[in-house]
């Protein structure tokens, strides 16, 4: 981040917006600015790519199956709920 040819303040400004950038929630001009900055700054590019990968891993982690005893227990609980009339 201490590269001579760019401003660290700019890195920090980008850093705060990276999630919104990943989520496509920024305006076109800000997106273009971040893209340009990431092309020139290895640290910010790395920060962006590791954050993107973190999001992708979350989205792709598989669900665990529900324990069969819980499924049966839910059925039993619901069957035993006293029926109420509509008010």
């Amino acid at each position, binding site marked *: 981040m201490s590269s001579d040819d760019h401003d660290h303040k700019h890195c920090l400004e980008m850093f705060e917006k990276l999630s919104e950038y990943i989520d496509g929630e920024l305006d076109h001009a800000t997106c273009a600015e971040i893209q340009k900055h990431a092309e020139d700054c290895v*640290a910010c590019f790395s920060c962006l790519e590791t954050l993107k990968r973190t999001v992708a891993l979350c*989205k792709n*982690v598989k669900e665990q199956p529900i324990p069969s005893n819980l499924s049966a227990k839910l059925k039993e609980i619901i069957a035993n709920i006293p029926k109420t009339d509509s008010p």
Partner: protein
Amino acid sequence: MTSPKNQKQNKIVKDEDFDLIQSINSGQDERFHDLVERYEQKLYNFSLRMCRDHRDAEDMVQDTFLNVFRYLKDFRYETKFKNWLYKVAASTCIKKRRKSKFAPEKELSLDEFRPNDDTETPEQVPEWALMPLDKLLNAELAGAINRAILTIPKKYRMVIVLRDIEEFSTAETAQILNLSPANVKVRLHRARLFLRDKLKGYFENEQ
């Protein structure tokens, strides 16, 4: 022409659960089982990520469905049923936490994650961020991710789970958690940075 008054009326959201909810609310209580079957696995996984053990997660699923059964008649179709269900689940989870004697949750500050000017500049992007996802994601890593998610302070965890795992939008997450969209974005960014640092640690230890 529609009068402005009518335009202001809340729009009914007819999602994939609409007919089922209608039949339950019109007296076919037995169809509640279909609703449970439809969502039990999703809700169990959401609960697992909110609670620290399986038993608490199971209790949370049960309590959520009991609350849904109790309040389903009040559901006004103003949102997708799934969003309302998660709102009930999130509120069940928050109430459970209030009843327990946990210490106050840690606040995450952006300063903790902000890169320093004097930090050594990485020469390249780490391999784990570049290699194909299907080559990277195995059962061991999935376990590490799940454990890492559980270490995120709860108010941030709820947001990242709803946004990045359950894939609700920012607006939907804000509605589910009664937060402003801006607040959702702030919490999400911090939660992702927290998780990213945990994953970084995991991959560095692996080498």
